[in-house]
């Protein structure tokens, strides 16, 4: 791994993600005010005591942004990790076993993917009780359908290679074939996909929170903060745009890293690096 070989765009992405994670981890120590403390006037302008101004209830926007980083990143990350674990396990199992297992899993996956993700989430969240765990699970299960599709395609590519057949003829079990033969050879595209899904999870969570169906107040999260402050737009108060910009910033940074990973993966395979 050569640090010089990392392009500038990827460095911007890495630094941006590092800042966001730093805020998420050390939030309570670096935030100037508490998460739910009312400290000033409603929609105080940026500058002075409050760097970004205050929100619709007079809470410090910067502090809520920092606390929001924790909630947003934690939930999005948890959902992505879970969806990856689920999607990978099922897709590799389907690709390795084949036959009826593959057929059933793939058809169920097709069915779930035939409903747009947001619509599916809306229907499901209309029924389920509102809680953080439910939110993470719903996001993870819906997201895992996309992971499954990629994972199956990638694993099928690798599963027909000679070394997999050799392992099978050696008498290795399905578990060994999945974790020791296929997984190491599919790591690069999967890592890029992980980043892509993480960026998507951030956007998806923010959208749900913005619609009032994600993380519930008074906990700070970026999408919810946009919703809280949206009425200010009419008076020219830009408080709603700051958390929106934070979401965009984090998503762009993650995507920059993904782009670099994808390019690297395709150049390792000898591709021409086309989009």
């Amino acid at each position, binding site marked *: 791994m050569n640090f010089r070989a990392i392009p500038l765009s990827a460095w911007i992405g890495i630094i941006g993600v590092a800042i966001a994670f730093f805020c998420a981890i050390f939030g309570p120590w670096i935030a100037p005010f508490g998460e739910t403390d009312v400290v000033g006037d409603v929609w105080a302008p940026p500058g002075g005591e409050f760097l970004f101004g205050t929100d619709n209830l007079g809470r410090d926007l910067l502090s809520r942004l920092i606390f929001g980083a924790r909630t947003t990143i934690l939930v999005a990350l948890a959902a992505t990790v879970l969806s990856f674990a689920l999607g990978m396990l099922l897709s590799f199992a389907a690709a390795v076993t084949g036959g009826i297992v593959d057929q059933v899993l793939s058809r169920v996956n097709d069915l779930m993917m*035939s409903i747009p993700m947001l619509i599916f989430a809306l229907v499901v969240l209309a029924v389920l009780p509102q809680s953080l765990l439910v939110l993470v699970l719903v996001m993870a299960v819906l997201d895992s359908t996309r992971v499954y599709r990629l994972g199956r395609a990638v694993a099928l590519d690798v599963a027909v290679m000679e070394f997999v057949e050799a392992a099978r003829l050696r008498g290795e079990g399905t578990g060994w074939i999945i974790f020791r033969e296929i997984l190491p050879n599919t790591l690069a595209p999967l890592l890029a996909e992980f980043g892509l899904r993480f960026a998507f999870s951030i956007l998806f969570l923010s959208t749900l929170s913005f619609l009032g169906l994600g993380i519930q107040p008074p906990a700070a999260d970026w999408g919810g903060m946009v919703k809280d402050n949206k009425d200010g737009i009419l008076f020219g108060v830009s408080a709603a745009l700051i958390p929106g910009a934070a979401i965009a910033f984090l998503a762009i940074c993650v995507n920059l890293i993904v782009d670099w990973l994808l390019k690297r993966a395709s150049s390792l395979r000898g591709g021409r690096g086309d989009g």
Partner: protein
Amino acid sequence: MSASTETTKAPAQPLSTPASKPDGNPLLRLILKRLGLSAVLLFAVSLMISGGIEALPGDFATTYLGQSATPEAVENIRKDLGLDRPWAERYLSWLGGIAHGDFGTSWASRNSVGEQIANRLGNSLFLAFFAALISVPLSITLGMVAVQFRDRWPDKIVSLASLAAISLPEFFIGYLLILFFAVKLGIATFPATVYDGMGVMDRLSAIALPVATLVLVVLAHMMRMTRAAILNVMSSPYIETAELKGLGAWRIIAHHAAPNAVSPVVNVVALNLAYLVVGVVVVEVVFVYPGIGQYMVDAVKVRDMPVVQACGLIFAAFYILLNMAADMIAIIANPRLRHPR
């Protein structure tokens, strides 16, 4: 469900049927198969929505009345809403009702869901139609420009813009446009209110900002995918051959690349129109636009299940239909299937 799985299955079929069989039109057969698949899918989706709602934990009656509701009151409201009947019976009557346009009654407002949807669906389609009208030609042109100037500055700008647009949440773009054009400059209207009997010009000016938002959201995806699709064709060996033969750039594009690029590009367009269907939900909420997306989100918040079910089914139906259209166009445009061997 993708075009690729369908088309890869295709060549195997003529081989499996005896050569003497006369109905050897693989094109027609594939299209009929795809139609049937969509119908099955739609039915399965209706079953899944209804069954899923039934199977998931959570009781509307208790949510509706609050935690302290007496069991009798809960029982009454369940009977009132018809929830005491078995699920299969309710599902069948729901499906039967949809067959003649009856989507049931809203629990919250006691209005007919079908009537509400009929009004609002028109509004949503109006919005989506204009967004598509602008974004489709624009993105195809920009995608071609990006390919033509590959790795030079127009291409770099296109990829940078699409990266930004993919990362920006819809509501952020929407509020940015509102703050800039409606509040600061005052040249656009917010909220985007439309009502019956509104003049066409008024209506168009009301939806200018939501359409702009949708265009920006879809444009990037469509541009990126168009670029990839055209690039894929342009980097194939027979284009290289044409170049080496000394053919002119336009002849290569018109005679060699275009016939093979049409189907992936149209596929891209249909897929992105399907994406537009979903984008409408958030944009409608941002602009307080009286469409079906707003209706659904409001219903989800109060757990008004008949409305949620109906809207969910309609969104899914549009999505499935557009995906089907994408696949069918890919099948029809595939010259290998038009000339069965």
